[in-house]
């Protein structure tokens, strides 16, 4: 997947400005930045839901608008109605609604991967926050996609659930899926990724976790993002 000179504006407000990067297949990348940096907007552009104001996003040389079904976006937890009358298994099954192809797992396999097979018949609002996040990931895994875009999957969950999710993401990338994960986490968890993209309207830093850490050792920038 590649972004070339990607820009996006909401009216007069420029949210993203000339973003350039290329993701290799099977990589696990973190997209970090402060609130309002444009992380969610970038994910929606990568998925083809939004049309860029300038530049282009391509997957294997094809504009993403023409291959959206190959890219799955896991939304933020807050966009879901967790009180809807639906079981975990039915919720995961919704991932197949827009395509007859199966994703990297069937529903049972996806629930097994996210550790929710024993809770398949339970209502969504009877799950803990971490379990809800895993159910959302389970639904994403059922989608027939080569690229997974995860919007803050580790937000509002406890450290054990976060560790479990990070391990699962690594397994998926080892299986050949390309993952981009937006996050606020600047701690040691960043070391779990192959690559880190630091976004704040423009791409501030891009490289391995060590390289990015080095770049951010600039005190001003480090304070700005870590504070």
């Amino acid at each position: 997947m590649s972004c070339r000179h990607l820009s996006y504006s909401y009216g007069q407000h420029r949210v993203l400005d000339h973003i350039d990067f290329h993701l290799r297949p099977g990589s696990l990348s973190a997209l970090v930045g402060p609130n309002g940096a444009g992380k969610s907007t970038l994910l929606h552009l990568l998925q083809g839901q939004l049309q860029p104001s300038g530049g282009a996003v391509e997957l294997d040389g094809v504009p993403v608008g023409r291959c959206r079904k190959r890219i799955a976006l896991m939304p933020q937890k807050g966009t879901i109605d967790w009180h809807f009358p639906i079981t975990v298994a039915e919720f995961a099954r919704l991932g197949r609604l827009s395509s007859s192809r199966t994703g990297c797992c069937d529903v049972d396999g996806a629930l097994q991967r996210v550790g929710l097979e024993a809770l398949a018949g339970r209502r969504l609002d009877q799950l803990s926050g971490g379990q809800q996040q895993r159910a959302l990931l389970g639904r994403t895994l059922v989608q027939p996609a080569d690229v997974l875009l995860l919007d803050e999957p580790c937000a509002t969950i406890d450290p054990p659930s976060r560790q479990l999710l990070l391990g699962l993401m690594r397994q998926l990338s080892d299986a050949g899926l390309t993952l981009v994960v937006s996050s606020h986490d600047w701690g040691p968890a960043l070391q779990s990724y192959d690559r880190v993209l630091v976004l704040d309207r423009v791409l501030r830093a891009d490289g391995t976790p060590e390289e990015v850490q080095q770049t951010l050792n600039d005190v001003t920038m480090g304070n700005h993002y870590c504070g």
Partner: protein
Amino acid sequence: MNWWLQPLLLAIVTGALCPISGTLLIVQGRVMQSNLISHAVLPGLALAVAFGFPPSVGGLVSGLLGSMVAERFLGSWQGTTSHGAVMNTVLAGFLGFGVLLIPVLGIRVDLEATLFGDLLLTRTVDLLQALGALLLQGLFLGLYYKPLVFFGVDPAGAAASGLPLRALRFALAGITAFVVVSSMTAVGVVLVISLMCAPALFGLSGATSLGQAVLKAAGAGMAISGGGFLLALLLNLPPGPLIGVLCIGLLLMGKIKIIGS
């Protein structure tokens, strides 16, 4: 045929019809639309009566128009609080317009029957229309069950999957308008709203699927509407208001877990 049989059948069919629509509206976060449409049918009813058209056709067009006007304005206002205010404004505007049309067109409308209906005056055509609405509602639910579930639980995700959100919402508004006009000629605006909401909340409580919630809601609606009608006959009370009061009873019984609480 016994004189009470046809009204009882209509009460039972309406008791299923309204909660099914109410459940679909609640899970789509559009419950205010039941209120809006049930009031917005009035101008259409008045115009239809004045010009000799079937009142239900006028009400259907008018209710749908009210819903479209509200949608148009909703685009300009962000936030659920503003949405409620926009809906209420359009509701009041259409209701006011309907009330104005009555003296302007020189027609007679029984306000009590408009609010609470009159089950005892049920005609065969009312029953057939309600059955037609129930059939249409069943078809809609059968054909679009999964998209309705997806849009209810994750509207942004469903839209991103390429499912037609606008078309589905328009169809839902149209069916709601048909349900309202098919129910209110016999049971009135107030009863339509209460039957759309209280049994739907009961159905949603503890249900593990939308289908289960719809069936529970329809069952509760039929019991409360049919039972309310028979109780009204026994107590010699008007059935519409009594059924409305019984709907509050569902809440008082504490058996409803309000969505989102």
